[in-house]
């Protein structure tokens, strides 16, 4: 009940307000949920995961630019993720254990999640979107807000900075 009210409110205030939020587009709560979601897509192991790398910073920044058309999708999608989490485990997504979070994401990925938010945007397409944006924020150029300290490039062994003016013969 509380969630659908919040979601309905969110639907009407699409825009980059967030007066009390440190983010450009997302609210504090939305960012926390999204960060937990991205972290499951690229989790921390011996190398930092999506949260530390600043993937949410990347997404938030793009929502004010090239991805501005996707603001509503994110609003509904994040609300839907929490709705599905509550339905399955009784708590919002960020409060679940990693295995529980994975179950929620698997339900979304296979289109088996329920909730009225998913009438606005399909769970599967929202999850696909977040997977691709997480990859961009983690493996893309740090200039766009993610890949903090070139963490992914160090991880995979991409030489940086690149060699300049190399003798080729």
């Amino acid at each position, binding site marked *: 009940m509380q969630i659908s009210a919040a979601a309905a409110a969110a639907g009407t205030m699409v825009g980059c307000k967030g007066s009390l939020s440190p983010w450009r587009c997302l609210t504090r709560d939305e960012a926390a949920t999204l960060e937990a979601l991205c972290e*499951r*897509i*690229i*989790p921390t*192991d011996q*190398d930092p*995961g999506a949260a530390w790398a600043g993937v949410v910073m990347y997404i938030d920044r*793009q929502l004010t*630019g*090239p991805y501005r058309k996707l603001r509503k999708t994110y609003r509904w999608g994040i609300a839907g993720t929490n709705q599905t989490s509550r339905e399955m485990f009784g708590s919002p997504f960020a409060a679940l254990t990693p295995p529980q979070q*994975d179950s929620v*994401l698997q339900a979304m990925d296979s289109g088996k999640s329920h909730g009225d938010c998913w009438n606005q945007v399909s769970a599967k397409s929202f999850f696909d979107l977040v*997977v691709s944006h*997480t*990859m*961009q924020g*983690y*493996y*893309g*150029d740090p*200039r*766009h807000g993610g890949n903090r300290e070139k963490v*992914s*490039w160090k*991880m*995979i*062994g*991409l*030489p940086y900075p*690149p*060699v*300049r*003016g*190399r003798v*080729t*013969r």
Partner: protein
Amino acid sequence: MTQNKVNAVIVGAGAAGGIVAKELAEAGLTVVLLERGKWYTAYDCRKDDLRNQRTSLLGCAFGPDDDRYRRVLVDASGQEHLVAPSDGAYNNNAACVGGGTFSYGAMGWRFLEKDFRMRSTYGAVDGSTLDDWPITYQDLEPYYTKAEWEIGVSGDDTNNIFKAARSKPLPMPPLPPSREHVLLKAAAERLHLHPFDIPMLRNTVPYNGRGGCMRCRWCVGFACEVDAKCGTHNTVIPRALATGNCTLRTECVVRKIATDDHGRVTGVEYFDERGRLQEQAADLVVVSASATESPRLLLNSKSRLFPNGLGNRYDWVGRNLMGHAYCGAYGLMESETYDDLGPGASIAICDFNHGNPGLVGGAMLCNEFIRLPIQFAAIAPPDVPRWGAARKDFMRNHFRRCVAVQGPVQEMPVFEARVQVDPRVTDDWGIPVVRLSGSRHPQDLEVARYISSKAEAWLKEAGATKTWPKLPGKVLSGGQHQAGTCRMGNDPKTSVVNRYCQVHDVPNLHVIDASVHVTNGGFNPALTVMAIAYMASAQMVKDWKGTGMR
């Protein structure tokens, strides 16, 4: 406003338009070259892996922009989608001086003899308008040579026993081999294939007043930081301007080709960089705007004498849109193969372009350009999950040990794969936009499966412990290799232009770009576009009588 009349106005400063401008200007004609994009330089290489012409997730670095341009795509179920240039379904090619040649990977292939005689070689194909070209490889050969020497091609195809005879060797040697090249070469030889160095429109040694490649990893999709890639923007267009006969106007969007009461074209109407409508009168009009934008302009140029648009008396304008069904395979190696030496693509085989049992055509196979991390993030064997710890682990362990081999399958032209103009949607200038519909021929996917199996075999021989195929979908093809929409032919009822790219029923109108391709070869088409531009310009100069065509 009306501009002073010139001898020729050319729409589009890309691979073909730049060459036509230079050839006509050097022959003494006054030329106006109109380009809707900007003139970028090597300084504009931002090395932005998310915003370039190859990976346009955050936009196209060299145009067109998402704000002012759009197209309508009709999918297989008949549903319409409004698509922006950064969306793959838009089938974009760069909009800037140099066009695609400004940021391409720069493979400079000649088509093979059989690529011009597909119908005679293989016979009719059901559901396809497959035909022979009205010109042969031999007709085009001198112009291939001219393109190789004037624009600049490096490489060494002496070991390619399938190539057609060439009158002159390539002007520049290939780059020294990378680790991947060495592995693949030895493997191909063990399989009794014929590997050779890809011809590339790239300086490997100082040539034409510019230096050689410094082998960085930002190649295809990017501007060359050291200006070693050869396009029309750094070769023929500066030469055209140096004659004093050619004016280049950038950020000019052409709305319509104007016609008179005698069925001839008289010039073009365009919006200049400040959005003002201009009229440019000319004796000759050349349309070199790409295989999607050229038919759009012809179809948008309706008049009393041409109610269906120019050149469209028999409804062939915009038909037969094709590109390449890219296919191939990935292989994981036991030891590291990544040596950070660009451009990456270096070794090819033409063993499977023709003569594949039971199949029509085929494809050249070669190793891939360096895959940036964000590109590699989309690559994994089918058993690795799309997300989670296992995917991250795969990235960490295999980025430096993955080799890709792929090739462009020669597509069967399909009459219903087409460019129209949309009846409702317009761009920011109020011009009706491109409406794309149709899909690939099923035969293309069959060939792709066969070619992929050959790519996997090559990778396995090179030491891959695991391989998996890369296969195309049945969607509409076009992309940066878009071609076919204003077919060249002898019969005005089944083609749009004649062998010299002259529109059949409008003698002073030419379409010179990949639109005229009857078939698109199993190769990247840039050098063929250039050769055709040289050939068509030579004929225009020959026919020029001072005030118009004969």
